């Protein structure tokens, strides 16, 4: 069976979940908690707005000199024994990874949370080729058992209740029913500990890579990335090219900022800086470390001077957490690797404007995302520009005609006035067709009443008072 077109899938899922009150309640509660914990953390910054400015400028500098900083990263990482690979697209990245697994005769892979691997659909590929792949982040592990992608790129299974997770574990792992979060975590931990020990290859992403030192910075709350990077013999890190920051000192701002905006923590529990494989004088660590720098159309976004700042993104997920659309339709409705406002902005660049332009239309342009973004991405204005770009590329047939007619009518005060009058005369007839397929206002009237039309418009009032 072929999968539905992105637009049909979006409309179908968003419509269903918008009306699902249990789902809405769960999201509103979770995001309410997030807001409550974020606020004091943000207030702890000496000047949050200034911090945003500095972060945005640092990222802007990194992106505008990407050629310099990525090469500097490569040079410094290589100097400590890391092998740096460059992948232009998803196919190249997949090929590099599979070649490495083959070269090392690997059979099993343990992964910490890697959104870039979702982007290149790595798990499906490796499973098809017969490798055992296990997600070690609890949320990702749960989603893997469910056979679906992350629901939110920071909180992968936030849409599930404890009961649902318990049932899932019972079904797949044969464990007894429990609704205690600690017990649920312990169940996963018992399974995963075994996997760390037996895995041939560890697989991570990166929150930042540092040009100055050639280091990979990974932020996490569960310690699973540490175990992933500590036990297997071979490490592979798949990293988007926009993750580079110039200096190690930049992390002094970005780490607390990411924690604050992402989860409302002062700092995430574990912040690790990896300097490559085991050095000759060291007693532990992986024997090989491979870093794959992934473009996958990020340079297409880089080439757009208007929207380039979308590459500032540190994937904190704050824009999802405040987005009233996300809070009603949830993450899976988007049908993308990256959900919410940032997903709506970057997906058309990464995967094609015409297929994904509906995501920019599915926004009230309220601007809550832009206001909350720690690195000052002008998200909601980019959605507006995206709509313009999509039309410039390909006008909508019927919609294009409607706007032409609209512009014509609005420019003729006489027509505007006649239409106003006609609207008032024909209004009483509307109730006969209201809500039916004949109703031209059906999209409105299915859930809302049309406003009553007063006998006198403001223009009438003004004219009458002039006398």
């Amino acid at each position: 069976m072929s999968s539905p077109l992105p637009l049909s899938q979006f409309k179908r899922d968003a419509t269903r979940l918008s009306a699902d009150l249990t789902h809405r309640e769960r999201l509103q509660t979770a995001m309410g908690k997030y807001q409550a914990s974020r606020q004091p953390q943000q207030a702890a910054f000496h000047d949050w707005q200034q911090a945003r400015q500095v972060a945005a400028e640092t990222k802007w500098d990194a992106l505008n000199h990407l050629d310099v900083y990525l090469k500097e990263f490569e040079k410094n990482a290589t100097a400590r024994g890391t092998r740096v690979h460059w992948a232009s697209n998803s196919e190249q990245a997949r090929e590099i990874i599979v070649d490495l697994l083959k070269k090392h005769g690997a059979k099993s892979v343990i992964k910490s949370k890697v959104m870039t691997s979702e982007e290149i659909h790595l798990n499906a590929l490796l499973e098809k080729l017969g490798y055992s792949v296990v997600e070690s982040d609890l949320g990702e592990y749960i989603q893997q058992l469910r056979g679906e992608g992350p629901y939110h790129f920071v909180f992968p299974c936030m849409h599930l209740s404890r009961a649902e997770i318990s049932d899932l574990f019972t079904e797949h792992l044969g464990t007894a029913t429990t609704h205690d979060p600690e017990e649920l975590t312990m169940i996963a931990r018992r399974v995963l500990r075994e996997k760390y020990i037996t895995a041939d290859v560890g697989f991570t992403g990166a929150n930042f890579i540092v040009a100055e030192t050639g280091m990979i910075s990974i932020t996490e709350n569960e310690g699973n990335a540490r175990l992933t990077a500590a036990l297997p013999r071979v490490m592979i890190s798949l990293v988007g090219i926009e993750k580079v920051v110039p200096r190690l000192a930049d992390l002094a701002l970005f780490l607390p900022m990411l924690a604050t905006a992402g989860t409302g923590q002062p700092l995430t529990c574990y912040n690790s800086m990896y300097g490559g494989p085991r050095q000759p004088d060291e007693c532990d660590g992986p024997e090989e470390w491979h870093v794959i720098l992934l473009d996958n159309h990020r340079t297409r976004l880089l080439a757009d001077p208007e929207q380039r700042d979308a590459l500032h993104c540190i994937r904190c997920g704050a824009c999802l957490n405040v987005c009233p659309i996300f809070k009603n339709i949830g993450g899976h409705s988007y049908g993308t690797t990256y959900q919410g406002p940032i997903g709506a902005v970057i997906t058309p660049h990464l995967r094609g404007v015409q297929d994904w332009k509906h995501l920019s239309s599915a926004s009230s342009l309220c601007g809550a995302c832009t206001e909350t973004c720690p690195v000052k991405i002008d998200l909601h204005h980019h959605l507006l520009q995206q709509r313009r770009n999509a039309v410039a590329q390909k006008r909508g047939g019927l919609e294009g005609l409607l706007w032409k007619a609209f512009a014509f009518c609005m420019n003729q005060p006489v027509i505007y006035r006649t239409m106003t009058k006609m609207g008032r005369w024909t209004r009483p007839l509307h109730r006969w067709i209201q809500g039916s397929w004949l109703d031209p206002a059906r999209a409105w009237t299915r859930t809302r009443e049309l406003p009553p039309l007063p006998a006198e418009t403001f223009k009438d009032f003004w004219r009458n008072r002039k006398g």
Partner: protein
Amino acid sequence: MKVTLFVPCFIDLVSPQVGVAMVNLLEKLGHTLEYPEKLTCCGQPPFNSGYWEEARRVARPVLERLQNAEAVVIGSGSCGAMLKKFYPDLFAGQPEAEAAQALSDKCWEFSEFLVNKLGVTSVGAKFPHRVTIHDGCHGLRELNGKQPIRKLLQAVEGLELVEMKEAETCCGFGGTFATKFPMISTAMGEVKCASAAETCAEFMVSNDSSCLLHLRGLMDRTGQSLPTRHVAEILMCS
């Protein structure tokens, strides 16, 4: 001061009493008003839909007609943002670029005009009721106008202001969004209405009638009886 009124189409057609209240109030404060009757729409609907050429066609007469105004007062945060913030974007690189910028500098959303330009907060209104505010997103975030409406309402005699939890959350109107994605828009409106109801307010007040149009329609359908008012209407109560 000579004030030029820009009355959005939805106020003209659906909520003319808001325009009337603005006229009466500004005249009460001693200002001379003019209203360019031939202007209809600011062009925001095609602009927000990506049809910028059509938007320019609608916006051009507005730009021309308002060129010589001393101050333009707009009865909605949304259309206010269109004239003040988005005209310069819409006409960037066009022959009208400079004119759009010049117009931007003298455009004011109604409540912002009273408080920030005229320095007026108290207009001698009385409204002995419990009121909650809905912040229209354009007024709130594009025009940075959270305070003016609050200052005006706080100065109204007898008015008890109670903030709702979701005051700054979008109501889900969003212009054409409300009909392109009606179910998402409706869900957002329901969240807003529930939050307003929690406050036990007798009225929901906003400086954007377009949001209220959507919320009113939703509440009329569900039978929620929370009356909605534009801030100008409250300021004319005595």
